[in-house]
């Protein structure tokens, strides 16, 4: 599917020559996201309005050119990587709309707005947009909606999906849809808002979102519970889920992650142990927060915590969360290539998943560490390796394979929040049967009959091979091994 000179000329007419790039250096800059396997597009185009997106998609559909929507390129499943070539559609300039309306408690946000900017705008009006992916200083609202992003606070407040009231979406032929609205209740027609949320850029291009905001919880505090046994920490997660109160965040760190994080940026706190649970509670006032903390402390001790620390002040809470934030950076000092999985299990199976991960680490001799959003079963098993060592990478691949099997065997899912993208599509048929995949394919065909939007992504590759432009491209590479 090479792009013709005529098509490029059409693009340049549409958005102006200074926003269409074909230089090899530009193509390198738009060849990757936060995953490891880049692929070069044939051209990059930047758009700044819904109108431009619409006319561009009409042009691309007619010319059958694959289009890879891209927000900030922080995706962890390869969704914005232009495998198979075609056009990268850079949407970060759709950032001019950002209005917060306290009367309706909604925000209307351009798809290119950075998530943190929405957080700040909402806070300035005393409101709160809870979804908080760790990448929030960089990622875009469009990317969050496309991936249905989560984050630590989603345990109590839900994921992106729970805050999307309305969407403006452009379909492959250029049609502009206005879906949902500004009301909490809305059952007029099919709920296409939910369909597009999490569709990974395969059904349409999101240009604007209307998002629900809630009041700021004014008070918060943090607890840290230390364990001599990782599984006990896992069992605490189950106990907290049953006894409550619901924490605003509940994160787990295993011994290796604590050790690396402390070596990297010492917290000044004594955190030696086999496992650490970090728990945040929030509420309307300090009395409520204090009460919740006391009850959670009780649950932790009852489930075998050796020691429970309640942060004395915001500074100490900050130091505790700093430990959690340091883990990612700390473990890549050990080995540079980080493979982040986000297989997720039902909360009650967290202790068993932890046991199986330990077995997988031992069986394949890989450097696997566990840290993540334990409260919602979204453990992040991370493997660090050296991508320049093929033997090690082969072991990593077998370990990842086993991780997916373990999660599915426990009634879980391949991905909790990062999406299927390119990386996980070859595992999709383990979770979804032929009937489910056929239904999804039918949805894809209904919205994008020419298969130009993110062709080959998010669907199992045996479902997409041979279809439309770009479909099935790069599958050989995909099958050859893990793409960390």
């Amino acid at each position: 599917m090479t792009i013709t000179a005529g098509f490029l000329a059409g693009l340049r007419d549409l958005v102006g020559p200074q926003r269409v790039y074909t230089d090899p250096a530009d193509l390198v800059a738009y060849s990757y996201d936060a995953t490891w396997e880049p692929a070069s597009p044939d051209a990059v185009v930047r758009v700044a309005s819904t109108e431009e997106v619409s006319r561009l998609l009409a042009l691309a559909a007619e010319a059958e050119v694959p289009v890879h929507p891209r927000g900030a390129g922080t995706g962890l499943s390869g969704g914005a990587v232009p495998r198979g070539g075609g056009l990268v559609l850079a949407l970060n300039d759709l950032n001019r709309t950002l209005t917060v309306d306290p009367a309706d408690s909604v925000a209307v946000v351009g798809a290119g707005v950075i998530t943190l900017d929405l957080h700040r705008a909402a806070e300035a009006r005393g409101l709160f947009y809870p979804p908080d992916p760790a990448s929030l200083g960089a990622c875009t609202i469009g990317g969050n909606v496309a991936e249905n992003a989560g984050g630590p606070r989603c345990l109590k407040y839900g994921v992106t999906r729970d805050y999307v009231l309305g969407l403006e979406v452009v379909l492959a032929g250029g049609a502009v849809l206005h879906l949902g609205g500004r009301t909490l209740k809305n059952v007029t027609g099919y709920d296409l808002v939910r369909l597009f949320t999490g569709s990974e850029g395969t059904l349409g291009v999101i240009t604007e979102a209307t998002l629900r905001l809630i009041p700021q919880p004014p008070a918060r505090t943090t607890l840290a519970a230390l364990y001599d046994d990782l599984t006990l920490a896992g069992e605490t997660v189950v106990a907290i889920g049953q006894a409550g109160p619901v924490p605003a965040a509940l994160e787990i760190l295993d011994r290796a992650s604590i050790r690396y994080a402390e070596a990297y940026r010492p917290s000044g706190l004594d955190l030696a142990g086999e496992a650490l649970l970090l728990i945040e509670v929030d509420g309307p006032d300090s009395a409520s927060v204090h009460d919740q903390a006391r009850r959670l402390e009780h649950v932790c001790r009852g489930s075998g915590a050796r020691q429970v620390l309640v942060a004395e002040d915001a500074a100490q809470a900050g130091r505790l969360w700093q430990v959690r934030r340091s883990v990612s950076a700390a473990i890549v000092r050990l080995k540079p290539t980080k493979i982040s999985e986000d297989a997720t299990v039902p909360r009650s199976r967290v202790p068993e998943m932890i046991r199986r991960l330990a077995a997988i680490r031992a069986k394949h001799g890989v450097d696997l560490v566990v840290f993540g959003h334990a409260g919602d079963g979204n453990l992040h098993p991370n493997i660090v390796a050296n991508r320049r060592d093929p033997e090690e990478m082969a072991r990593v691949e077998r370990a990842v394979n086993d991780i997916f099997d373990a999660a599915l065997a426990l009634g879980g899912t391949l991905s909790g929040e990062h999406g299927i993208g390119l990386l996980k599509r070859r595992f999709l048929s383990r979770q979804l049967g032929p009937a489910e995949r056929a239904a999804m394919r039918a949805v894809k065909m209904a919205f994008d009959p020419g298969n130009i939007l993110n062709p080959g992504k998010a669907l199992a590759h045996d479902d997409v091979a041979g279809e439309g432009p770009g479909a099935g491209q790069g599958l050989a590479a995909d099958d050859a091994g893990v793409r960390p």
Partner: protein
Amino acid sequence: MSGGRGAVAAGTTGGTTPLFEHDLDLCMRCSACAATCPTYGVLGHEGFSPRGRVQVAGALLEGRLEPNPRSLEFLDTCLHCEACRTACPNDVPVTRLVDLALDLPDFKPLGPAPNRAVRLMLWAVAHPWTLALLRPGLWLWQRLRLGRLAKSAGHRVPWLASLAEVAAGLPPMPSPFRPALPARRAPALPAPLAPARRPQAGSGRVAFFLGCVQEAVFAETNRASICLLQAAGLEVASAPGQGCCGALHLHQGRVNDARSMARRNIAAFEAAGPEWVVNSAGGCGATLREYGSLLAGDPEWASRAAAFSSRVRDISDFLAGLPLSGGEGGTGRDGPEPHRPRSTPLPLRVTIQDSCHLVHVQGVRSPLRTLLTPVAGRGLVELPRPDQCCGSAGVYNLERTELALAILDRKMEDVKSTGADVVVTANPGCTLQLRLGVARAGLTGQVRVLHVADLLWESVRPTESERKGGGSRG
């Protein structure tokens, strides 16, 4: 302190391959750096972001991309402001990778001949006698209003125009024909480098690093810094023979020039024998603190350079580190122990533009707040992005005028949003650039741009009446 070009040069001699592979592998492409990068902020294109620069540099170094004008543009527009380094959770040395890639031989024929204004400056600052002529020269420039002439010639000689724009922010130069009468010109400033009236035994001698541009055009800032140190009860030793720190040369890749400047400065300060080497130019300070790595490969100088670097402190960091004078004993410069001089609040609303090499390389952020909080009578207000470069970046504003001005104009919008009367900086280049910004934003007369030492001294120095009465204020 290994971020500078000096470290690169030291590393390249032994072959670049392992160095860059390690650096490259550190980048996990998370893009946590993008929001801090001024060029990405203005241009919104991945190639002008830190992550983009790392990946493009990697592609060039691994031979996946041929050096061409566009990749040169991505790399060459990096301000070397090091904001990305502060933001990066993995401490990826972005600018080191950029410089390594720019050192590829294939870039040489592509690179634009060094800008004439830049070459002129590099040559001038390296020689004491040209610096001696700089002040009178600038006086002539200002008297004859050559700036206007240069600007109007700008369409034919663009480098002259960009020089003129920046020079517009200079303070008025004293006439060389009327020898400066310190008492009349700046009544509160004692003669430079005079010892404190009562130097304390064991109080720690300091020597002051003057800096070339700083001393030539912002001598008043150096005087204010020295006065502050003396007011703190310290003896300020002089270090004759010191010169330019070599930062500009280092960033232009003229490493050997920079090394010889380093040796000259180290020798000068060794002779003075101070405990601390204090300076008031964030960029120079960062370079002084990198002498250790710059001369690491030189057996004769390595340990001397490391010892020197460990003594270097920025004026605001140094002052904020002193204890507040306690109780009635703390009377300004007569205090028994070195102490932080006490400020009187001024009726001003103050904001801070952190100078890149102070905040991102030297890691000095809170001292400016500590010192200025008691000074800002109408409040200390933070800029939305206080630690994001103003576009000055050494000689960047002369080389990449258009982009530098776009970055500057964005910064001025931020300044307006604070409603501040004074923008405080910590580096001469930033002062010049922001003064240009004030003029461009039509804020002349409303907003002053001052070095932190100037404003502090304004709030510390004895008032005229107190001086007459022989008293001093603490």
